[in-house]
């Protein structure tokens, strides 16, 4: 990936309608199933739960240029819950960052698509992730850098609810408030499940909105699968001044595939041939 020296002041930005976004999210889900099935490994549950949020960001909200992935003025995106990178790879491929044929190589030797996202291997990946609880701190760093460099890009970070058990998330939350990072927005993919089982059983997060509020953040709560809520919330986040914003998105792990929905076992397991076929036909049906 060559470093770019473009003087674009504004990236050509595909601004999709809500309806087109819904269709794109279906395509992203198809890619996720295809990719993980082909790799015979990966994390479908958390990829599917974040599909609508990531689609809205890449196809409507973010100021980006797929032909110029290193554009210094671009909005930054970090999927801090890096195990869900199939959703990221799908969105990047659909947005034109790289050829879709790469999706067949997920987790293979010599692939640009690593098991957890690698910023040095995949065009469009702004931060290397996979060890939970670090992406938000990286986001804080990028948001602070925008000040130093006098740039007005926005930094978007998606974290998992399980991931919010890491103490470092709250260290970053304090920092975001201290420095009044209104160019930083966190979306919590609040699907209620982590690796072992339901989050409430493993380590309850308690009142998440109250926690973020207490840390000094502007808090919004939405349905993370309703484009008509996702898009306005993301757009509102950009307008909030003086404090960082967190959007707590209620989601369903495995969303879109009936047998994966809300089933902890689908956190990190690939569908077999038959399951993949059913999953794909179920997702396709959502197009009509």
């Amino acid at each position, binding site marked *: 990936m060559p470093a770019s020296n473009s003087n674009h002041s504004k990236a050509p930005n595909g601004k999709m309608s809500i309806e087109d976004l819904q269709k794109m999210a279906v395509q992203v889900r198809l890619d996720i199933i295809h990719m993980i099935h082909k790799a015979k490994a990966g994390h479908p549950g958390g990829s599917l739960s974040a599909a609508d949020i990531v689609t809205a960001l890449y196809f409507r909200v973010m100021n980006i240029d797929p032909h110029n992935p290193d554009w210094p003025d671009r909005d930054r995106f970090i999927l801090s819950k890096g195990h869900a990178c199939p959703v990221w790879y799908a969105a990047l491929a659909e947005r034109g960052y790289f050829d879709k044929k790469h999706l067949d190589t997920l987790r293979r030797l010599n692939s640009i698509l690593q*098991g957890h996202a690698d910023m040095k291997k995949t065009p469009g990946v702004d931060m290397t992730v*996979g060890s939970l609880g670090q992406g938000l701190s990286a986001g804080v760093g990028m948001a602070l850098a925008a000040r130093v460099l006098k740039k007005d890009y926005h930094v978007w970070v998606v974290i998992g609810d*399980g991931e919010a*058990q890491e103490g470092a998330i709250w260290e970053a939350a304090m920092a975001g408030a201290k420095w009044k990072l209104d160019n930083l927005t966190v979306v919590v993919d609040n699907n209620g499940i982590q690796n072992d089982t339901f989050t409430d059983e493993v*380590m309850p997060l308690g009142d998440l909105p109250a926690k973020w509020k207490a840390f000094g953040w502007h808090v919004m709560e939405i349905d993370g699968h309703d484009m008509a809520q996702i898009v306005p919330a993301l757009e509102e986040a950009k307008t909030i001044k003086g404090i960082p914003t967190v959007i707590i998105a209620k989601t369903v792990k495995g969303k879109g595939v009936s047998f994966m929905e809300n089933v902890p076992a689908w956190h*990190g397991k690939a569908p077999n041939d038959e399951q993949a076929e059913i999953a794909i036909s179920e997702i396709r049906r959502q197009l009509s």
Partner: protein
Amino acid sequence: MTINHALYHYVRPEVVDKLTSDDLFKTLPSQATRYAYAEAILELGEKDPRIVVLDADVSKSIGTNKFAEKFPDRSFNFGIAEQNMMAAAAGMATTGLIPFASTYAVFASMRALDQVRNSIHYPHLNVKIAASHSGITPGPDGVTHQAQEDISIMRALAGSCVIAPADSPTTKQAVYAAAAYEGPVYLSFTRDPVPILFDESFPFEIGKAVTIRDGDDVAVIAMRDLVIQALIAAERLAQEEGIQARVIYCHTIKPLDTEAVLQAAQETGAVVVAENNVTFGGLGSAVAELLVANYPIPMRQIGVKDTFAESGPYLEVIHKYGLTAPHIANAVREVLAHKARFFKQPNLSAAIV
């Protein structure tokens, strides 16, 4: 050519028979050693009420969820919060409990390293750190989950005990031994299945390296998942080139069995160390430190060089990064050539002893 079984010790004959066949990994019974740990801890829980298990949201991936089902009062899932888990384990150990804190090796040895150092090792508390996905044994997950440095890091802590068993039966023995040992122990397990090499008769003792194949041309010292690779290399070298390599299974990296290593060095005159870990600070370094001060003979290291690896199937990744039998065989050829030059030096024996 037939395989000389008499050269092998404790290695199951079925394994010895397969050493030169290409389908060894497909046909030999195998198990990821993380699951052997989970079985052993379940048995220990039955016998010793002081055993408690701490998890960090990967209990299902390691198998300690079975302990949680059986002993709900002695099982604690801290969620995705490894640092909290490690320091809490330290606190529990102060009361006489024997905590086994289980997570992936990257998080056990690196995410929570400060807790592991300052709260566990400095006060020398009786915490057992059960680390799965050690070395580059998690292939497909990629670099963030590959703990290629854990052995080096843990070895650097004062008073640490570091064990990296090669297969499931000796993993179970290691877990029992760790429970009986007073002080912190780091146990390193594989994510991927490795062939079952030994049976319960293996004489496992913390700090005791075991010769599992005789040979006087060169000593190959190996740990964890590279023990099988060392055995394959040794048998191929014997059959194809008449080289007799002694293979030493060094499951305890620290404390190192200095006697066994020095004896092998003196009897063979050349050493190769094979580890699925970086070549800085791990088993290779431990052996080199010992030899350079006591018996400086030619030595080569097989390990991860100054690079991170990548995603891919386990065997493909370790092959690409230079950790399989052909690489060990090459290192043996190299060290033997060096040995031949080395021992031609005049007055050498006076110089090195």
